[in-house]
């Protein structure tokens, strides 16, 4: 999981982010074998970048504060992207 700059997200943040990216950005974590953690990490980073780009955030691929704040804003349940 990508670490933020100097402040690492807590486990609950990471879980929340994974759920958010699965709901709205078609992140499919469960289909990637855990043994391929590095692949997992890049995949998640790509999805974070996609979300940051879509919602007008700075594209860092990191779970930084602005990204986590955006994820916690009330929103529509329709996905932002489709597979």
């Amino acid at each position, binding site marked *: 999981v990508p670490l933020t700059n100097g402040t690492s997200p807590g486990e609950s943040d990471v879980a929340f982010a994974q759920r958010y990216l699965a709901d709205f950005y078609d992140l499919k974590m469960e289909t990637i074998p855990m043994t391929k953690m590095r692949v997992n990490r890049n995949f998640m980073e790509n999805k974070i970048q996609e979300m940051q780009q879509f919602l007008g955030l700075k594209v860092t691929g990191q779970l930084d504060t602005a990204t986590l704040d955006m994820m916690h*804003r009330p*929103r529509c349940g*329709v996905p932002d992207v489709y597979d």
Partner: protein
Amino acid sequence: FRVMQGRPVWKKHFITYRMKNYTPDMKPEDVDYAIQKAFQVWSDVTPLKFRKINTGEADIMIQFAHGAHGDYSPFDGRNGILAHAFGPGPGIGGDTHFDEAEIWTKSYKGTNLFLVAVHELGHSLGLGHSHDPKAIMFPTYSYIDLSTFRLSADDIRGIQSLYGAPEKPRPSSKPDSTDPTVCDPNMSFDAVTTVGDKIFFFKDRYFWRKTFRTLVPEFHPISSFWPSLPSGIDAAYEVTSRDSVFIFKGNKFWAIRGNEEQAGYPRGIHTLGFPPTVRKIDAAIFDKEKQKTYFFVEDKYWRFDEKRQSMEPGYPKQIAEDFPGIDSKLDAAFESFGFFYFFSGSSQFEFDPNAKKVTHVLKSNSWFNC
């Protein structure tokens, strides 16, 4: 903007909707009004027409639900996901669901039902989420002042890519006749102004455009010319020397030139020099000779010097004193060929500003060959 996956659209222009239930957070009539206004936002800029039915299966079924509610997308309690909707299609297609765990309101408190409804109905009509933070179709919720809420240009481009623009009014079956509604004997107008060689008569969401040469006026939705202007305006006047028309509603005013809305508007009417006690303008007239604008509010009027761009000292004054015979509350006013025309309800007063007297009392719709 994006459209929903597979670009689903309604293959018809008359679409029904039905409220399956209501939130206890708001009065049912307030819910109905919010949903009706939300549909109107989209019907203003497309050929689509929406009709509420109370029984049977509607194209768009609307409900409030808690948690899991039978569509594989359970709601998640307060905040988080506020609502969701399905793209056009049979059955659940087009349906809109609101999370009952939210606090639904008609104000800035809690979650504003109208704003979320406009967004979700965008999905019900086939729009996806937009990248544009100013678009109503941007995925996250933020409160917007309802009196100035408008669809963004991105929203309008998106929905018109699916359904096109509103249909131009067809000439009536008898081309030499006028639209019967304007000939209603009780007809009144929100505002009237000249625009070049034409006269614009504003009423609710529409306006009639009339030239002195043609008998039959054109009839258009305001939003088809100026998407972000409000409906039900209070006053309008043209400053010919600045080739601009100013539109007033409540404590704000807009400037338009042709069908372009000028940047930097709306502005507050108090920037013109009105005292805080003035909340709205009833009518306004620009006097070409004097380059002065008269603003009429209740029984008083102000005069604005268009050259100096400032309100003249010594105002307000009583309308009845300086405009003898004009003593009822005004709806609209405009100047033509040196005469002032004042509209009050279904009556119109032709006033000679030099002789300072009413020269004719007419019906408000006397400009139309009823």
